[in-house]
Every structure is written in structure tokens, then in C-alpha cells.
């Protein structure tokens, strides 16, 4: 087990390196450079000035050297200066923005897990009855409808028609409600569908029958016997859920004007902000990879049948 954990943790290093390399290559394969005078926010520059700038940012060196320098600095937590937000280092921006995204993501994830479990259990216990249809429909809605579409509906319903919540911002807890729900509905749907399937399987198992036949009432059968076993495969779902919340946050954050990492996704990419792109991709990649690792290890811990 410990061996496995160490091996998996070490495997993170080549994964992140490969991720950095792929991002780096795609980035530099792109026509246009940050010094391009027609790029957004750039001044038309004389060739000499361009050369100076290239030298200053190390863009005149061969690609493999640029990559090596990047990796060396990144290991020390130095991602350089943002090309777009020139007065701030990338690390500063991320240190400011990442906690906001993390907070929003954590709230959404908690809501998704709680709501998804509830819907899934309801659907399985009342299989093929109205509760089942209600929760399956709700879950499918969450899975299928993109969150920027949900956001539009929510703003119209709960900000314009019934003005309960503001349309955006991040100051007061009131502003957190709509972004959190919007971000949570997709993962909640995934969770509910999976919980339902897992519960149905367990409810038909022999040990549930045994529990029933020894005279236990329905509540302890469902919660003590069935749910406990049904939860084990559900744990593996947390990995994809983290990813869903992570990538979903861009849309939700930009629509509801949340000052998180989300808005840097596209801003950095369309603005050819190389240091920022690398940092954003790697932060998300590393975060997801670590979460997946944690999930896999928890899984082995919860299910004694699994040996590594």
C-alpha cells in the first residue's frame, strides 16, 4: 500500500512534465507572439525594441532552453511576470485568485455530493415510482445542460423576475448562492445518476436480502447495509467531479463576475500570456492529479478487497 502510494506520487512528476511540455509546444506552435504589434494591448514597436523585449523575457533563446529555464524556475515557484498584467508576477495573481476558486469549488462540490447522494438514494429506493422520475429528470438536466445556459436561466429567474440574489459579485454571502448552485448542478447530476445505479445494485444483493429477512426495518437496511457498500464505488467518481467543477468554474466565474482563476483561462490564452498560460494549466493539472491520487488511495483504504 505504502509502496503503491509512493509510486503513484512519483508518477505525478513525469505527468506534470509532459503536461507542461505539451502546453509549451502548442503555445509556441501558435502563429503570433506576445511581441506581435497587433496583439491585444500591445504597442506597435520598432524591431530594435522588439529584440530588446525578446531578450528581456528570454524569448530569443532556442525553445528547448526556454523550456528548461521555465521548468527550473517553476520548481522554485517562480512563474515569471505576466505579459498582460505587467506589474504583477504570475505567482502573485494565482495566490490571489486560486483561493477564491477553491472556495467556490469546495462549496459547489459539497452541495453536489450532498444533493447527488440524496437524489440518487431517493431514486433507487423508490425505483420506477414518481420520486425516481423526479430525481432522474433533475439529474439528467444537470448533466446535460451546460452551466452557462443554467446561469442565464437562474439570473433571469432569481435576479430579474424574483429579485432574491444579485446578478454577480463576490462580496457578501448572498452573491455566493447563484454561482455555487450553477456550478454544482452538473456534478450533482453525475453523482445522482451514479449513486442510483450503485444503490440499485446493492439493494439487489444477497446481504441486503439477509438484512431484510432478519427483520430489520427499511431505514437501517438502506442506510446501514446498502448505502455503506454502495458508497465505495462512488468514491472513484470524486476525481471526475473535481474536474467538472474545475473546468466549469471558468464559465460560472466569468458570468457571475467572481474574481477567481476562471477568467484567466481565456484572457491568458488569447493574449498569448505565456507565463500565465503555463501557470494556469499546471495549477489545474497538478490540483486534479493530486486529487485523483487522493481519491485512489482513499478507495483502497475503504475497500479492503482492493490490494495494490
Amino acid at each position, binding site marked *: 500500500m505504502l509502496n503503491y502510494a509512493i509510486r503513484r506520487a512519483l508518477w505525478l512528476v513525469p505527468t506534470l512534465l509532459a503536461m507542461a511540455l505539451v*502546453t509549451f509546444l502548442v*503555445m509556441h506552435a501558435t502563429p503570433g507572439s506576445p511581441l506581435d504589434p497587433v496583439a491585444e494591448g500591445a504597442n506597435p514597436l520598432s524591431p530594435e525594441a522588439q529584440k530588446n523585449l525578446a531578450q528581456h523575457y528570454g524569448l530569443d533563446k532556442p525553445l528547448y532552453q526556454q523550456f528548461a529555464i521555465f521548468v527550473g524556475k517553476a520548481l522554485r515557484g517562480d512563474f515569471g511576470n505576466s505579459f498582460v498584467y505587467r506589474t504583477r508576477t504570475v505567482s502573485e495573481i494565482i495566490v490571489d485568485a486560486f483561493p477564491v476558486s477553491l472556495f467556490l469549488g469546495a462549496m459547489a462540490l459539497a452541495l453536489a455530493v450532498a444533493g447527488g447522494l440524496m437524489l440518487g438514494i431517493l431514486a433507487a429506493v423508490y425505483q420506477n415510482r414518481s420520486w425516481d422520475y423526479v430525481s432522474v429528470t433533475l439529474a439528467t438536466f444537470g448533466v446535460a445542460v451546460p452551466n452557462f445556459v443554467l446561469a442565464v436561466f437562474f439570473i433571469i429567474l432569481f435576479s430579474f423576475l424574483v429579485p432574491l440574489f444579485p*446578478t454577480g459579485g463576490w462580496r457578501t454571502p448572498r452573491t455566493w448562492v447563484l454561482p455555487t448552485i450553477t456550478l454544482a448542478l452538473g456534478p450533482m447530476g453525475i453523482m445522482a445518476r451514479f449513486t442510483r*445505479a450503485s444503490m440499485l445494485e446493492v439493494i439487489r444483493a444477497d446481504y441486503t436480502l439477509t438484512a431484510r429477512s432478519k427483520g430489520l426495518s427499511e431505514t437501517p437496511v438502506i442506510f446501514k447495509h446498502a448505502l455503506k457498500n454502495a458508497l465505495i464505488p462512488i468514491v472513484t467518481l470524486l476525481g471526475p467531479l473535481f474536474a467538472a467543477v474545475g*473546468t466549469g468554474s*471558468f464559465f460560472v466565474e466569468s458570468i457571475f463576475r467572481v474574481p477567481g482563476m476562471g477568467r484567466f483561462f481565456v484572457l491568458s490564452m488569447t493574449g498569448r500570456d505565456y507565463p500565465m498560460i503555463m501557470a494556469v494549466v499546471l495549477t489545474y*493539472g497538478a490540483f*486534479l492529479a493530486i486529487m485523483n491520487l487522493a481519491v485512489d488511495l482513499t478507495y483502497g483504504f475503504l475497500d479492503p478487497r482492493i490490494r495494490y
Partner: protein
Amino acid sequence: MSPAAATSAETAVGLLAAGGREPIVSSSLGRDALRRLRKNRLAMAGGGVVVMLILIAVFADVLSPYTYTKTNFGRLNEAPSRDYPLGTDQLGRDMLSRMIYGARVSMIVGLGAQVIVVLIGVPIGALSGYLGGRVDLFLTRFVDVMYAFPRLLFVILVMSALGAGLLNIFIAIGLTGWVGIARQTRAQVLSIKEKEFVEGARALGAGFRRLLFRHVLPNALTPIVVAVTFGIPEAIFTEAALSFIGVGINPPTPSWGQMVGEGQQYLRSSWHLCVFPSIAIAITMLSFTFLGDGVRDALDPKLK
């Protein structure tokens, strides 16, 4: 029961029956699945909407009252009226016409991107699973790294590298989407190539190509079909998301995602700019998802 076992069992029954007096009408896996699919009302409703959307996409030129580029600067951001059933947009273009042409983009991307995904993913997965050894090791490692990438982030990265446009959307979705299908195919091929009937075919002297294409791949088809059915709404979502943030379809070609993205800033004053394309995206995604659920349940009833 796995589909492979199902078919061979049915063949066996058919053979036995053929030995008797009356021939039994054999029901193939496909026909069986179709029967189950037809009974699923939600899936059929979804299928009906999908057919309608495809028809709208094909006959967009005939159906739309205006061209999608025709501007009317006298009537900007107008609410639905008799002239413009769904109102006009910020350039005075007819929303209904743009919605109809938007269906075309969604359908082309949804269906077309899956062709690319299958063409890349299936061969890689099949070769990896079938050949094993170093090839497999290399391909699985590569697939693992690709899998670790936040998917949408990578698509956005590729799109900002290639620039907006329909063809580039195909490339971006193709480059990122094959990974899932390759994994599925590999897992299937791995388990099927050890089965007795493959062994039997090999013993009878079937070559590599015949083994792979006649015996292994057809039996690995079910999860691939399911993955493709769910891949369609995912591709539609990806296009809508890309166009929403402005790196997807090039204007003036309309796309629903782009319309939501552009209309979003006028949400308070002109709700119709955002709401109609939003509803279209929601209905399309729901229909494809219901249809996909139905196809999955029909092909593998055990999963239900």
C-alpha cells in the same frame, strides 16, 4: 451476459433450431436492442427531437425567413414581433433565422467530430490492446497523460493556437476526444482477444487483419457505440462553450453558444437574445442525452 456471448448463444440456438423441423426467427442483437429502444419513451422523444434538428439543419436555407447576415439597423435588439418571431439581435438580424442556422453548426459539430474521434481513437485503442507489449505501454502512458489534462482547458488552448473556425473546432475536439474511446476500445479488445472464439479463429489460420476486423472489433462495438452516442452531446457542448467565450465559430456564422455569449451583456434589457439560444442548447443536449441513455440501456440492459 456480454454481447459477444449473447450473439454466440443465439447462433447456437439458431443452429439447434435449424436442425429441428421449424426454423426459428432469430433475433439478432441489433434487432433486440432496437426493440428495447423503441419501448423507451424518453429515448424516442429525444430521438424525435434529434431527427427534427437534423432536418432543420439540412433545410436551413428553405426554413429561415431571412439570411443570417441580413441586418436591419432600424430595428436593433427588438423583442419578438410579427416581422421577427424571435426578435432581432444587437445588429438587427433576425433571431429566428440565426437560430435555424445555429442548428446546422451544432449538428455538424456533434456528428462530424465523432467521426474524427472514432477514426483516431478506435485504431489506437485496438492496436494498443491487440498488440500489447511496448506499443501498448507507450500508448497507454500517452493516453494517461492526455487523460490527466483538464479537457476543456486543452481544447481552449488548441483553439487559441489554431484560431476560431469550424474546421479548427473539428481538429481540437478530435485531438482531445479520442482518448476516452481509445481507452474503452483497448479494454474491450484486451478481454475479447483471449476469448475462445478468437482462439478458434486463430487456430483455423486467420491472419492478423481478419482476426482484428472480423472477430475482435465487431464484438467490441457495444461500448464504442455507447461512447459515441454520449460523445455527440459532449461535442455540441464543447462547440457551444468555445463559441460562448469567443474562440469557437467565426462570426457572422451563427452558433447558439456564440449567441448566448454575445447576448449575455444585454440580459437585463433584451432577454430574448440570450434566452432563445439557451433553450435551444438545453433542448438539444437533453434530447441527445435521453437518446444516449436509451441506446446504452438497449444495448446493455444489465446496466439499467
